[in-house]
């Protein structure tokens, strides 16, 4: 089980690498989908299921769908692929830079483990649900400001 969580963490970082070294926006969106699903699965493995569900529905189902439509508007008809040498060079170079930075700063000697949301069995009040409920009760100001910001963005986009 621990190996699965490590694998999800690795998939998240590889999805970020795929977005950064994309040959074409079509393949960049694939990397973003992989990273979002890996991040969502990782949050579920820590017990934080509401936040993960929100990530999948709002981010993948809302924002990325709009991105895919815009990519179909703005991308070229004969894209490069993953096996072109320029793309492989970019991906390898960026991965190498990050790995060298991590090794030089000595991070790999300092790694520890992490706990979960509720380590004592089933609870009737979970951290994520009660936290999201704060948004509607004491955090009502946040809700109103967020709604106002979204309304303004609507007018910005329409203009």
């Amino acid at each position: 089980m621990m190996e699965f969580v490590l694998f999800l963490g690795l998939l998240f970082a590889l999805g970020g690498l795929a977005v950064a070294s994309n040959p074409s926006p079509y393949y960049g969106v694939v990397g973003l989908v992989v990273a979002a699903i890996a991040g969502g699965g990782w949050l579920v493995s820590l017990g934080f299921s509401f936040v993960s569900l929100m990530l999948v529905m709002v981010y993948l189902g809302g924002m990325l769908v709009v991105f895919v439509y815009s990519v179909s508007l703005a991308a070229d008809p004969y894209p490069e692929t993953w096996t072109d040498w320029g793309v492989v060079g970019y991906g390898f170079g960026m991965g190498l830079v990050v790995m060298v930075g991590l090794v030089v700063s000595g991070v790999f000697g300092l790694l520890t483990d992490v706990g979960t949301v509720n380590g004592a069995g089933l609870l009737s009040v979970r951290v994520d649900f009660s936290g999201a409920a704060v948004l509607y009760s004491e955090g009502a100001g946040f809700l109103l400001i967020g709604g106002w910001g979204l309304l303004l963005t609507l007018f910005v986009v329409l203009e």
Partner: protein
Amino acid sequence: MSHLHLSFYSAFILSSLGLAFHRTHLISALLCLESMMLSMYVALAMWPIQMQSPSSTIIPIIMLTFSACEAGTGLALLVASTRTHGSDYLHNFNLLRC
């Protein structure tokens, strides 16, 4: 630092490198910005888990809201520039040429 922190830290660094080195399309820069927002969302969601404080759960939710606003604005700019220039190639955006 735990290995999970390492994972989203390196994803954030890679996405910001991709944003700095975007080559032909404007939309690939916007995709790197979205990936930075995703890694920041996962990072902020780690906070209520590790500090066991439920009230901090609203912070990634609010961040996702404003990231959606920003993505929509960026896409509107992309569509507007595609209408005037015909494509979103970055070497076409040379109005500020000296």
